[in-house]
């Protein structure tokens, strides 16, 4: 069946890159289960149209209208970090989990707990233990290879 999808897919593609919906959702659902546990519906704040397209296919994800409504903020570019900083100034006790799609964004702000990004053709998953601890999040053992104490 997957090959049939490939046949048909090629007839309809545009010129820009598009992510695979199913495998991307699987990974993010796994991350939600660790970072925002016990939530039937995860409220995600995301600006990037590609990720919005992907998350719109999931039953357990709702889009947050602003950062204050979000359980999970997906940081895809520096403007999201600026929005968060601005929000934090007026709401210092915000509990939203920030997660990045680029290493540079993980480096740029100490509120970002982890990142899933690409490096030289390989996906990299990275969590910062002290930042997780600030949110009282403890990673299961299977994530031990993806957690570091500092950058």
């Amino acid at each position, binding site marked *: *069946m*997957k*090959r*049939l999808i*490939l*046949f*048909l897919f*090629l*007839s*309809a*593609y*545009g*010129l*820009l*890159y*598009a*992510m*695979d919906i*199913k*495998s*991307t*959702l*699987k*990974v993010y*659902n*796994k991350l939600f*289960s660790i970072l925002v546990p016990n939530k039937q519906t995860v409220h995600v704040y995301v600006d990037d149209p*590609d990720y919005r397209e992907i998350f719109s*296919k*999931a*039953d*357990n994800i709702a889009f947050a209208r602003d950062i204050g409504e979000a359980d999970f903020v997906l940081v895809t570019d520096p403007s999201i970090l600026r929005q968060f900083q601005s929000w934090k100034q007026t709401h210092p006790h915000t509990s939203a989990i920030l997660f990045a799609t*680029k*290493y*540079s964004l993980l480096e740029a702000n100490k509120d970002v707990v982890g990142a899933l990004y*690409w*490096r*030289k*053709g*390989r*996906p*990299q*998953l990275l969590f910062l233990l002290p930042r997780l601890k600030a949110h009282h999040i403890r990673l299961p053992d*299977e*994530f031990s290879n*993806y957690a570091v104490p500092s*950058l």
Partner: protein
Amino acid sequence: MQMLHGEAMDTLLKEYKDKNDLSQRTIDENKGHLILFTRDRLERMHAKTLKDVLKMTPFIYYHENRYGLPDPLTSSLFEPYRSNFIRLFIDGVEITQGWLGSGVVLYGDMDINFADHIEFYYMTPSLETSVEPAYMTIFIYSKEPEQDSGTSLDVLAGSRGYNVQDVNYGGKENGVSYMLNVSRTQEKRERIDNGTEHPLKRDFERLQLMGYAKTDTQTFHIQLMQKNTDALAGLSMDATPEVSEIDYQNIHLDYRYKFASYWQLQFAYDMLNTDIRMSDDNPLLYSGVLLGNDFYGKSKNSTYSGELTYTRQWGNHRIATGIKGRIKKLDYFKEKRVGNVPLIFDREDIWSVFFQDQYHISKNKLLNVGVEYSRICRNSPRANDDDLLQIRLGYIYSGEKWRYKAYLYRSMFALDPFSTTLNLSTFNLHKDPHTLQKTWGVTQELGFDGEHYSANVMLFLLQDKDGLLQNGGDGNTRYLTTVFQYNYRFDLENRMDLQLYYANYKDIFTLDRLEDYSGYLTFSNTYGQFDFYNGVVWHQNSIDDKNYFDWTSSVSWNIHENLTLTLKGENLLDKAKKTDLYRIDPATGTLMPPLKISPIDRRVSIELEYLF
């Protein structure tokens, strides 16, 4: 979408990697038999040039001609080049040199730091993409900002003063993806002893720029290259030139527009300037056609390509049809003292129309029928027009684990303008410059995907009639080639790749039979912050039954997420495959013992990559 918390993260990441690899976006199972080098694999190999990849690609591998240029099908005799039948595409648009054949001769050793992945397809792939017929088609696809945004800086230094500097910058804003890559290469290569005090040189300096900007419906692409070369033996008959240098300047521009859901319009422009400086104490090759002991010439040629295609899904049929045109124009070819050099024609137009139907018999079986008619027009009464007919029938089965493909090809090839013009009939390159080659091929491929491994075997049966690439013989060559590939993935970071190749040719050149064996074995491993790569490419053929080994080894230290230091050794045993370079004794006109030259230099290099 169901939540799947039970699956291990490692498993999910492996699937995420496989499904989101950029190659999944561009691979077209319907194009035929594929050899794929993914980004991960290119990075692990530390492949910096297309040459690093071509040397592992069966059927053609990597060879250089007497001008020190990439020319995998070279006979090492006296033709200007031979690899017109290997076509090179970047981001889906062909790079061509017009009067100097396909893009392979200039771009066959190009810097590929801009590339994400490379696909090799045997024979003419989908008729949607090809303008001229091919034995092999190479598709290079650029990095995308989704996986490579920001800037990367790469500096490299190696044996004999070899050095490269490369900058890559990419991003995406307001629905526009863009990338710019600039590289400068100072290639210092091994000298070739020719029995004189002045060994042959093949050093070069290259400045290369590649850039694109694209939206979901439009793409603009630019490629520039300035390459100043020491041209090895060049036009010297006995490979003892006093001067042998050629400089190349190339511009490629293309624009693609998808509109009204089913239509695509595409234009491309290629321009090549050459500045040739040759001198010898004996008459040069072509001295009867051109001049005596010196040749200082300049040429410019331009190629204009355009195509309009219509692609639509009707029920189980995916129909593609369209028209294509290409104009190759020799703007000038002049020599310093005599001015314009007369040629029998200076323009070649190729007009094609094609129709292709991919019919889904069932959800995992597909039939493919394609026909293309081309007319080649030349502006000279002495150069005939040609009519070419390509036919392609295919069947594909794609199950969850098993894959099978079978194709029947009928291809026709015409000799390119430059080879026709510089026809050294005394060396029996071909019988008649206007003969058309017909090649019939039956090809099959069977593959299996296991949990941690995949295996693939290809079997090709081909027959050339009136072959254009002859060294003696009648050009009616039959050949059987097989490729076996196996890869095993220990985990996300560690893998092994094996390839074995066997070819059996009957009636090729002046030989009744020729057997060719080759293969490679590579290991990619990661331990902590270190990546290791070890690979051996092996060659042997029945002409001398000698084994050649090209061992490449590298270790990368990922000092920081943004900083990597790599030590790499190539052809460490100094036993890589060698190519004969034929020579003629000017005094007697007889063939001298050929020089044996490896196109792969023995080299150690150190590389620093910084991402910011």
